[in-house]
C-alpha cells in the first residue's frame, strides 16, 4: 500500500489564494443574501400580498375604515345606550347593525373589538385614553392613522323605549 501522506509535499498558500478565497466568500455571501431577501421579504410578500411590497399603514387604515367603521360606530352607540360594551357584534343585530353583517367583531369582556380581515387582525380600542385603531398584520403591527369613530346616531327603537316606560 502506498503511503501518499508522507510522499505528498505540504501545500504552500500564495497571496493569490487569499484573494480568491475572499472572492469565493463574497460569492457564497451573495447567495445567502439573495436567499434572505427572497425567503424572508420578496417571496412571502408575493404569496401574501401578490406584490413585492407590503401594504403601508395608510393602506391598512383605508381597508380597516371601509370594513369596520359601521360596526364600531354601532358598538359605540350600544355602549352609549347601555353603559357597557357588548360581547361582540352579534349582540347588535337588528337594532344597531343589520343582522349577519360582516365582519364579525369580538369583544368578549375586553376593552377593544377585534375583526379578522384576511391575514390581519384589526383592533379598535374603546378606552378613552387609548381610543383608536390598531392593526396586527404580517408586516406591520401598531396604531393606524385613522380618525376616531363617533357613535352612530342609531339608538334603541322607540318601541323598546315605550315598552320600558310602561313598566
Amino acid at each position, binding site marked *: 500500500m502506498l503511503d501518499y501522506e508522507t510522499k505528498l509535499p505540504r*501545500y504552500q498558500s500564495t497571496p493569490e*489564494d487569499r484573494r480568491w478565497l475572499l472572492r469565493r466568500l463574497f460569492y457564497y455571501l451573495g*447567495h445567502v443574501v*439573495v436567499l434572505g431577501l427572497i425567503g424572508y421579504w*420578496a417571496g412571502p410578500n408575493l404569496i401574501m400580498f401578490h406584490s413585492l411590497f407590503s401594504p403601508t399603514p395608510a393602506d391598512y387604515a383605508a381597508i380597516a375604515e371601509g370594513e369596520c367603521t359601521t360596526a364600531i360606530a354601532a358598538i359605540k352607540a350600544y355602549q352609549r345606550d347601555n353603559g357597557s360594551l357588548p360581547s361582540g357584534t352579534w349582540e347588535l343585530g337588528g337594532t344597531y347593525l343589520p343582522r349577519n353583517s360582516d365582519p364579525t367583531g369580538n369583544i368578549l369582556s375586553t376593552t377593544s*373589538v*377585534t375583526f379578522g380581515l384576511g391575514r390581519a*387582525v384589526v383592533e379598535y380600542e374603546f378606552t378613552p385614553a387609548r381610543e383608536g385603531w390598531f392593526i396586527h398584520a*404580517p408586516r406591520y403591527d401598531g396604531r393606524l392613522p385613522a380618525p376616531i369613530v363617533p357613535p352612530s346616531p342609531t339608538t334603541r327603537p322607540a318601541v323598546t323605549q315605550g315598552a320600558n316606560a310602561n313598566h
Partner: protein
Amino acid sequence: MPTTNPMFCKRCYADLKQSGDVGALGCFFCVRCKRRFDPMDLRTYLSRPFPSRRKIIIHSIITLILATIVSIVVAGWLSVAQMKYFHSTH
C-alpha cells in the same frame, strides 16, 4: 507536470502546480485535500480557483429552491402569527 495551464483543485481550490512531484506515483493528487486529477483532462481540475459555471448554475438553482421553501414557511408563519390578537374564547 505536463501542462502549463493554470490548474486548481475542484474540491479545495488549491493550486495543483504544487503537486507536480506526485506524478512519479502514477497519478496526480491535490497536496491539500488528496483529490485525484489528470493534468491532461480538463474536466478533472479548474482553470481558476472559483466554482465552475456548472456549479454556479447548480448553486443558483438550489438557492432559488431554498428561497421558495423559506418563503412558503415564512408566509405561513406570518399569516397565523397575527391570530393570537383576535379575541377568542378558544
